[in-house]
């Protein structure tokens, strides 16, 4: 047993913390989020240059890390600062399939992505798919001119800004079969690709995507992509769970500060025992989440069932804890915790909305259960 960080990771953590502390105040975050792209391309490049994107990928994919612990570390820091830049879309969702399935373009693309030069996105979820990982109605057909995709993709994170999209499609099988899935690389400007971008509740960006006879380059052998899709989602769920941990840490800190300074009935509200005890319960759940994230990070390289159980456990706890922390921190703040100009509610919104990405707490609870029964 060993819980200390390696020297490399300690340095990575310090780099991330220092940059975000010095260069990423919340007002700037809001300004970044309000841009048409939904983030600041300049800051994204800066952070990429510091290695924060490369940390999400292993050396064989042009990265500097790529283990569960690296992902957890980076995303916990991104969460602490409420970063809106497209780390998840590019560094995890888009890059993982390229790393795993290779293809002629992959090396250069990953390098460019890690450097912050090329934005990626994963177009996998569909309008009727909810959180089912193998629900794919989009079809892929190989013709004389190559592969063509047709279908609709829903809530594609940073899908409007991405230069390349990794798109899942079905070459065979029924709507939710794990067999028969394939991943493709699609150019943002490809004919037949339509994107409708929009803002999200907590300040991010996503897009609805329509594919009509859209040319695409297959990643790996079409029909066998499900294990990679599952791994991509596992890495994304770990990243989001770690982000919740970071968000919760900051929300807790803001709320403790409020409790120490805000007075009601002649004393700081932090002296009211009922609030103290609720705060302790929150702190306890945050520690539970921290443990679950550590476990999921450690198991990211384990055999499938062990990996997926640990990841679903973390995402389930992230959903439960995220909601608890968001609701309790707003409640302890009172009205001021509901105003746009206050930092807290922005953390609260992200804390809650992450539950809507790649499976909410109920989805992962049932999944954790089902994976246990299988074994």
């Amino acid at each position: 047993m060993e819980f200390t960080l390696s020297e490399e990771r300690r340095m990575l953590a310090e780099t991330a913390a220092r940059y975000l502390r010095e260069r990423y105040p919340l007002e700037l975050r809001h300004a970044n989020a309000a841009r048409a792209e939904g983030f600041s391309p300049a800051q994204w490049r800066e952070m990429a240059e510091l290695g924060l994107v490369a940390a999400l990928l292993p050396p064989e994919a042009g990265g500097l890390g790529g283990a569960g612990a690296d992902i957890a570390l980076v995303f916990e820091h991104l969460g602490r600062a409420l970063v809106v830049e497209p780390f998840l879309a590019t560094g995890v969702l888009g890059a993982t399939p390229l790393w795993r399935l290779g293809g002629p373009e992959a090396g250069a693309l990953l390098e460019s992505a890690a450097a912050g030069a090329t934005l990626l996105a994963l177009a996998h979820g569909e309008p009727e798919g909810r959180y089912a990982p193998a629900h794919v109605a989009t079809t892929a057909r190989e013709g004389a001119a190559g592969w063509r995709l047709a279908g609709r993709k829903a809530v594609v994170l940073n899908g409007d800004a991405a230069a390349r999209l990794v798109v899942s499609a079905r070459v065979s099988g029924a709507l939710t079969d794990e067999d028969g899935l394939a991943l493709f690389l699609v150019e943002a400007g490809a004919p037949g690709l339509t994107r409708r971008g929009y803002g999200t509740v907590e300040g991010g960006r996503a897009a609805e995507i329509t594919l009509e006879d859209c040319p695409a380059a297959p990643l790996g052998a079409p029909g066998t992509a499900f294990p990679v899709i599952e791994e991509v989602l596992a890495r994304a769920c770990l990243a989001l769970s770690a982000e919740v941990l970071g968000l919760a840490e900051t929300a807790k800190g803001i709320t403790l500060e409020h409790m120490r300074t805000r007075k009601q009935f002649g004393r700081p509200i932090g002296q009211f025992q009922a609030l103290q005890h609720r705060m302790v319960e929150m702190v306890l759940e945050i520690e539970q989440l921290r443990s679950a994230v550590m476990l999921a990070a450690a198991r990211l390289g384990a055999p499938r069932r062990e990996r997926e159980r640990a990841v679903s456990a973390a995402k389930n706890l992230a959903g439960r804890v995220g909601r608890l922390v968001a609701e309790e921190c707003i409640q302890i703040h009172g009205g001021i915790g509901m105003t746009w100009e206050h930092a807290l509610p922005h953390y609260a919104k992200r804390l809650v909305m992450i539950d809507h990405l790649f499976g909410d707490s109920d989805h992962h609870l049932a999944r954790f259960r089902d994976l246990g029964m299988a074994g």
Partner: protein
Amino acid sequence: MDLDLSPGEAAFRDEVRAWLAAALPARIRDKVRAQKRLTKADHEAWHALLAGRGWLCLHWPRALGGAGFTPVQKHIFEAEMVAADAPRIVPFGPNMLGPVLIEFGTAAQKAHCLPRILSGADWWCQGYSEPGAGSDLASLATRAVREGDHYIVNGQKTWTTLGHHANAMFALVRTDPAAPKPQQGISFLLIDMASPGVEVRPIVTLDGEHEVNEVWLTDVRVPVENLVGRENDGWTVAKYLLGFERTGLAGTAFSRQGFEHLKRIARIEQADGRPLAEDPAFSLRMAEVEIDLMAMDVFNLRMVSAANAGEAIGPEASLIKIKGTELRQRITDLLRRAVGPYAMPFVPEAFDEGYNDAPIGPGHAAPLARQYFNMRKLSIYGGSNEIQKNIVAKTMLGL
């Protein structure tokens, strides 16, 4: 013991229902149903229709132009309003100031103000909360100093709902800072929002909306005849008003409506190849909420019935407020969860009248996350749920 409506009550319900079906403009109803933004004109138009029917000022005696409803009638009326997707009555004039003036106002105040509430000539707002006095109302700091025939008022009010529409405010101000207890030395004033020194600044809430405001008062001159009740006795007036404000705080009609909406959505949304309403886990969450809601309904009816029998509603109102707001929040939580990833998209302009672009995802999804966050206010305002628990512990449990 009979939990069902008596024939007379049922007839009244039918009368209300029929009138609402005929009188509520479809344009307004559709906006409420889709949770779009209502304009000031929308509210005013609806108030005028209600006033025309005599149903704007529910508690007021008929002789003064009110509906003269019994508590049971008021309960039925409000439930029908919600079920019909009618805009709620903006409460500051009809439900709050009106009853206060009827109890404490001078003949001149009544003669001037009550008709103008009925006619819609005045839009009142409430000046209670202050930045330094949230749940702790007695610590308010806005000062009013008597100078001849006027009070000179200085201070800052906050959380002033729809204050940007208002031309008048009723406010609590401190007239005697040397009073031995903080509840003493407070007075209840009527302030013309057009007075020099009144400034309304919007507060944007976490959902990006502007519904509440800060109101800054700088050397505002208020005629002494605008004092309601006696000087330094504003706490008595405020407590009376808080009592009125607390009836109906359960919001069971909203919870019921929200739950029916949830059922509709859960029948449409698919999870693992079947309607979400048949998902083993989600359906149990819904069942538990429905059971709590059924119990809450009866709990609320017990209070309404007691009020109807002339009993004073004590700390039970606090219990109702706590549970009612928790339930509404739980329902908005399930609504948000029900739509999965499509809770994410947020297109603020979609809530304006006339926005006709296709929605992102299913049409029912758009307002749900916004509503969930907005409804966090329920457990904060009207006396936070923590304050309500303190009240119950002290007055009901003797702790």
